[in-house]
């Protein structure tokens, strides 16, 4: 593997992913927890106990996320932050794919494409089921 090319790409993608993680953390902390703590700490505790009773599971559907953000629900920020964070490891595979294409390392382009395809199938099958 040409070391310089790899180092160059890593220098570009490391700060992008680190910033994405920090953005996700800020959305969760400021958008969700700090707002909750400042304006409605009882609401958070109420939800915590509802989760303990198993009541909130299956109700925070991702499809309704943007509606809830429009309604100003701070808990939508928690979901959004978790979603952004979840994309970070998956983005790394996509970056690897680009890295191997740039290096014209077609064996690894094929292997990475297989992994990406498997992940997409997994997500689609899981979502449907």
């Amino acid at each position, binding site marked *: *593997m040409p070391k310089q090319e790899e180092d160059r790409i*890593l220098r570009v993608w*490391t700060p992008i*992913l*680190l910033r994405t*993680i920090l953005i*996700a*953390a800020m959305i*969760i*902390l400021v958008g*969700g*927890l700090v707002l909750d*703590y400042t304006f409605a*700490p*009882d609401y*958070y*505790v109420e*939800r*915590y106990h509802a*989760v*303990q009773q*198993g009541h*909130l*599971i*299956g*109700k*925070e*559907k*991702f*499809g309704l996320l943007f509606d809830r953000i429009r309604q100003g629900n701070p*808990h939508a920020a*928690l*979901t959004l*932050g*978790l*979603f952004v*964070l*979840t*994309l*970070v*490891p*998956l983005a*790394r*595979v996509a970056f*690897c794919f680009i890295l191997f294409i740039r290096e014209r390392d077609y*064996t*690894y382009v094929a*292997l*990475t494409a*297989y*992994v990406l395809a*498997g*992940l997409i*199938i*997994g*997500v689609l*099958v*899981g*979502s449907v*089921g």
Partner: protein
Amino acid sequence: MLEILTNLFALAIGAGFIGAISGLGGGVFIVPALVVLAHMPMKVAVGASLISVVATSAGASVAFVRDGWTNLKVAMVLECATVTGAVIGAYLAGVVPTVVLELLFAAMMLQSAYFTITKRGDDILTKGDPLAERLELGGEVPAEDGNPAHYEVVKVPQGGALMVVAGLMSGLLGIGSGALKVMAMDYIMHLPLKVSSATSNFMIGVTAGAGALVFLARGDVATTIAAPVAIGVTAGALAGSRVLPYIKVEYLRTVFVVILLLIAAEMGWRALSGI
């Protein structure tokens, strides 16, 4: 509210730190702590654990990939096997009784712990086998003195076979199976332990990321719990990834054995309690 958040943060920071240095993801602490200490339903704990694995991987891989600890090629070859196992596992769900799988997994963890105890330090190979050399899987262990040690890799098919099993177990039991990943790389393929740990960290996030997306889409992640856990785990993992280069391999093996025994106990408990 502050008390709940403080407890969740403290648990998560510790789980993220140990998950990052061991390459096992931290879910092993999150599940029992949430179920036993916080009285959360198992489903909530599993969702939070999945998010914690993603967060550990996201946080730890920043430094591990940048500093050259992660072997991206080994990760990609083994991830092919893991993904295949996970997809087969998703289809086989319900065919094999979960209790049998949990007991089997507990036994595998005990055996892994035995292997880890009996192995000392790293046995770095200077010659890989033909397949590994063709796939250019060898790499370098970063060194502070500027003279990185080169290592080669062997037994790729055997490592891949164990990864198919790891993927199957992930698909069937909903666990990260980072322990099997580290075992495959450290014990079978002879990668240095820290490289195995960093590469496992990269891989577990990929599979768990796909799982977490499904959980989020279905609404099966209790964000009230998972969000503070994610923040704490990310912070712990960022710290752990900066400490790993300075930890002696022998200490790391001890940490690893303790966690393997904990996983074995947890799986045995799950099987016998019927959760």
